[in-house]
């Protein structure tokens, strides 16, 4: 029996095509994935992301625990700020990517991927043993992302006045807490917007408020093309436990200073840096016809090969784009093997699209 989020009945009412995603019955689209994509790039859309895991960390050691648990450094966080980071194993492999929100010195919230929830929590519990910190999975909460250039304007018609005013004042990657409601200016689309975590009992009310404000329901299909255009990695496709952040275009999230912060995976990353990183994650833009798909072969001048980790169609650019893991010295051009043909592609540094515009 697949799991369902508190929004499930509302998706069905909105004519969603429901698909399995990591054991969850989730909306793929509500009619047209491409229209939903454009809606988010041009106006505002909403995504049910309640399948993701919300874990609250309480205790005097919450900060020290996270300093060791994740590769980015939570010491950089002030109260009310969010941080994107990878959680690594001892080999530097990525267990998951997550967002850490600092509420207070003794209270952090982390949001983890749906497909890795059980694995993450087992790992996080194991690592917590020598710290004064408790982990609580908040299955009583739901989560909705409201994304798009009109998200801030729409929020005034969705949240009560005082909360909306605070939400509008939020800077990117910050958040505000109102009792059980948690409003963050974060997202996974390359557009402005919010992610709201709130009591599951308020699900129907929030959904109707969004609909009334003209925020259109969008499915996982549009979420995937939006994040790909934004050059944001998808866990399980673009990275997993067999690769490090240094091979995943995420070096910026690995903080080596100060040298005495011993985080899990640090030693392996230092060794990898010393020996030289051999592969990296780049963006590809297809010049020729066709659509790049996951796992297709990338052929590089010389004798190098790489692999497409996320391939697809970009509705904004109206051509195929991809993320691919390739030899580190790849030039500006390569070929992708699509259905036994070698099609030329441009190599770029992601993102492809930010705030509705082409950026490469």
């Amino acid at each position, binding site marked *: 029996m697949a799991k369902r989020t508190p929004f499930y009945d509302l998706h069905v009412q909105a004519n969603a095509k429901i698909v399995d995603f990591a054991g969850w019955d989730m909306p793929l689209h509500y009619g047209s994935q491409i229209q939903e994509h454009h809606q988010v790039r041009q106006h505002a859309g909403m995504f049910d992301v309640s399948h993701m895991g919300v874990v609250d960390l309480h205790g005097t050691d919450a900060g020290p625990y996270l300093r060791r648990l994740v590769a980015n450094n939570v010491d950089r966080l002030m109260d009310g700020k969010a941080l994107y980071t990878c959680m690594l194993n001892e080999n530097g492999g990525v267990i998951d990517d997550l967002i850490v929100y600092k509420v207070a010195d003794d209270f952090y919230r982390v949001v983890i991927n749906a497909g890795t929830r059980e694995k993450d929590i087992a790992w996080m519990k194991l690592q917590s043993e020598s710290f004064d910190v408790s982990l609580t999975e908040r299955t009583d909460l739901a989560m909705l992302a409201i994304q798009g250039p009109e998200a801030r304007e729409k929020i005034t018609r969705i949240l009560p006045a005082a909360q909306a005013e605070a939400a509008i004042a939020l800077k990117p990657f910050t958040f505000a807490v109102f009792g059980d409601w948690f409003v963050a200016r974060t997202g996974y689309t390359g557009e402005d917007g919010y992610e709201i975590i709130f009591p599951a009992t308020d699900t129907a009310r929030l959904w109707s408020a969004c609909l009334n404000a003209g925020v259109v329901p969008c499915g996982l*299909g549009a979420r995937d093309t939006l994040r790909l255009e934004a050059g944001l990695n998808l866990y399980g496709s673009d990275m997993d436990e067999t690769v490090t952040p240094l091979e995943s275009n995420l070096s910026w999230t690995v903080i080596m200073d100060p040298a005495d912060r011993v985080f899990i995976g640090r030693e392996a990353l230092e060794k990898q840096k010393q020996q030289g990183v051999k592969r990296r994650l780049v963006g590809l833009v297809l010049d020729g016809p066709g659509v790049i798909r996951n796992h297709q072969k990338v052929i590089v001048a010389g004798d190098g090969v790489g692999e497409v980790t996320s391939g697809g169609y970009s509705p904004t650019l109206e051509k195929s784009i991809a993320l691919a893991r390739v030899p580190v010295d790849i030039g500006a051009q390569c070929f992708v093997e699509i259905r036994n043909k070698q099609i030329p592609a441009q190599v770029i540094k992601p993102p492809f699209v930010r705030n509705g515009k082409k950026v490469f």
Partner: protein
Amino acid sequence: MSNIPQKLQYTKTHEWIRQDDELLTIGITDHAQTMLGDLVYVELPEIESSFDGGQECAVVESVKAAADIYCPVPGEVVEVNDAVIENPQLINQDPYGKGWLIRVRPHDQKGSGLLNADEYSKVVASEAH
């Protein structure tokens, strides 16, 4: 429920076939376009190319996946629909009309092995299980 017009013939691989005098017009069914989602790329054969029955003759790609189109009967391609190359979403909008793919002159007129609408409905129903 997907639309399965009575007057057309079908294949198990979700092509539809319309007999217009001695020519066959071929496209993909409403069920197929629904399963694929928004179409974004179409590759059609050269005019005058010949195919065996069941041979790959075209490719349609959606936001989700690529799908081969199989020539339902042995025949020669006499016309292709350039409009769907320009605008693949015509297949989503009008799979049995403006979204047609190719026109074929069959090598023989029997058209054996094709399904009627009721038989094809059963294929679609069985996939739902």
